[in-house]
């Protein structure tokens, strides 16, 4: 479904992603692991069209994505919940969610998806008219995920969705990801919480300073010594 090939992305003259190749198959949950600064967020930002490629290519459902402007990429069916949430803080919960559905033209579908997000995260529904900036970090994270779901994406990219969440909330998020997957949404997940991510993932890629070091199935990586040492806190 998504193929990233030899992708190089730079900030100014500094390459942050130095030629990575990976694929995401339809219906899979794929996770990108890596230390801070490895280039995970940069990869997602490039796929969303916020950053231009220096070289390489991105293909989505058989069509080239690199060079397509960001707002058109949403229309193609890719949504992102960015790192650090990036909510429209002075807007209400509902306005944030509606902006997530900005590119959609089916008001009835938008309304039912809105109800669905409120169903998934009741606190958002109860306080739908309050400004997003007034919510706790975890609640804001729910809103960021809900907002990304509102575009009805085929591919949903989540950048550290469990950041700042309690273990219970993290579980809720992981369950939500499972549900979405069972509904046919493909997921590209960037996580600090490697064990949670890997137990969900069909496939994992491990990035280090702009390169993919190795990849395997989620299960295999959970048992991999290198992963255990670097990301699972085992010695």
């Amino acid at each position, binding site marked *: 479904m998504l193929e990233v090939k030899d992708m190089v992305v730079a900030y100014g003259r500094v390459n942050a992603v130095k030629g990575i190749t990976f694929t995401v198959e339809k219906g899979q949950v794929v996770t990108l692991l890596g230390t801070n600064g490895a280039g995970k967020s940069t990869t997602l930002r490039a796929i*969303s*069209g*916020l950053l231009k490629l220096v070289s390489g290519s991105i293909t989505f459902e058989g069509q080239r994505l690199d060079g397509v*402007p*960001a*707002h058109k990429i*949403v*229309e193609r069916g890719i*949504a*992102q919940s*960015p790192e*650090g*949430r*990036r*909510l*429209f*803080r*002075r*807007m209400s919960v509902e*306005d944030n969610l*509606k*902006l*997530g559905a*900005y*590119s959609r033209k089916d008001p009835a579908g938008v309304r039912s998806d809105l109800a669905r997000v409120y169903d998934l995260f009741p606190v958002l529904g109860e306080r739908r008219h309050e400004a997003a*900036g007034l919510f706790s970090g975890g609640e804001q994270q729910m809103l960021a995920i809900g*907002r990304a779901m509102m*575009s009805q994406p085929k591919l949903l990219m989540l950048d550290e969705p469990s950041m700042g969440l309690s273990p219970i909330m993290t579980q809720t998020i992981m369950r939500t990801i499972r549900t979405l997957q069972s509904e046919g949404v493909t997921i590209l997940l960037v996580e600090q919480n490697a064990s949670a991510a890997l137990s969900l993932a069909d496939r994992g890629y491990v990035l280090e300073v702009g390169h993919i070091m190795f990849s395997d199935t989620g299960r295999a990586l959970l048992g991999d010594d290198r992963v255990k040492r670097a990301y699972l806190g085992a010695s």
Partner: protein
Amino acid sequence: MDLFWQQLINGLSLGALYALIAVGYTVVYGIVQLINFAHGEIFMVGAFGAFATWVVMGSPKQMSWQAAVFGLLPAMIVGGMIVSVSVALLTERLAYRPLRDAPRLAPLITAIGISVFLQEVVRLFFGTIPGMPDAKRAIPFPTVTGISGRSFQIGTVTVQNSAVFTIAALAVCTVFLWFFVNRTKTGRAMVATSQDPDTARLMGINVDRVIMSAFAVGAALAAIAGVAHGMRYGNIDFRMGFLAGLKAFTAAVLGGIGNINGAVVGGLVLGVVESMATTFIPGQFGSPAWKDVWAFVLLILVLVFRPQGLLGAKVVDRA
């Protein structure tokens, strides 16, 4: 006391003119953090566009007030808007957009350059358009029967019909803007873009289009101000955008740059302060020559004691 009311009316009508222009500074700033110093000239070309529309209509002179108010005036406003919006969009496309990622100083200097450029283009070339008068000197603005030069009395207070037009136009525009920003999709996209442009793009918002609509909305209001200015002062000239633009910019900062309601309030406050200062400050400091001084003194005071402006600037918060 009558003098007070008289000056209040004068101040409000002058302030409404500033406010109509100030909105353009503030919406553009709110979205691209650019002080568009050429916006005064957008107001100027709007006035010239309205004038040209009148010429194209055959320079009608004698007509009933109904024909003037419901035919000529709307036609001139629309003509002025077409010109000012086109020029604003061209400047955005050709001058500002290529500099979107350049250091802040580059578009600012460009704006000053465009301002001079537009003045000179009008001065040198307006008269070369068939049918148009030479614009090196002030041009008498067409008389809108029933508004231009007409006034009525409330007690001893004289109210110019053009003042009523300006204040009414501002009121209508303010309601329109509120509706646009809060109730239309493009308006919501504008607010989102002003808060966080990258995330707006992740929502599927075409940020280039949002920026264009900000320039267009500001230019349309500036054109209305151009017509109001023509009816108020009876003539227009290629330099008219300079001081009016500077005052409107002051009004925008006064109200809190980036804040649309702030631009409206800032404009009105500035107009009233100017007209009150020339009446109630004794001695030479209250003479008309000092009017602009008081306007900028007010600006300095606000910047010292309330730098975010009267209603608070919409500072972009990127989480």
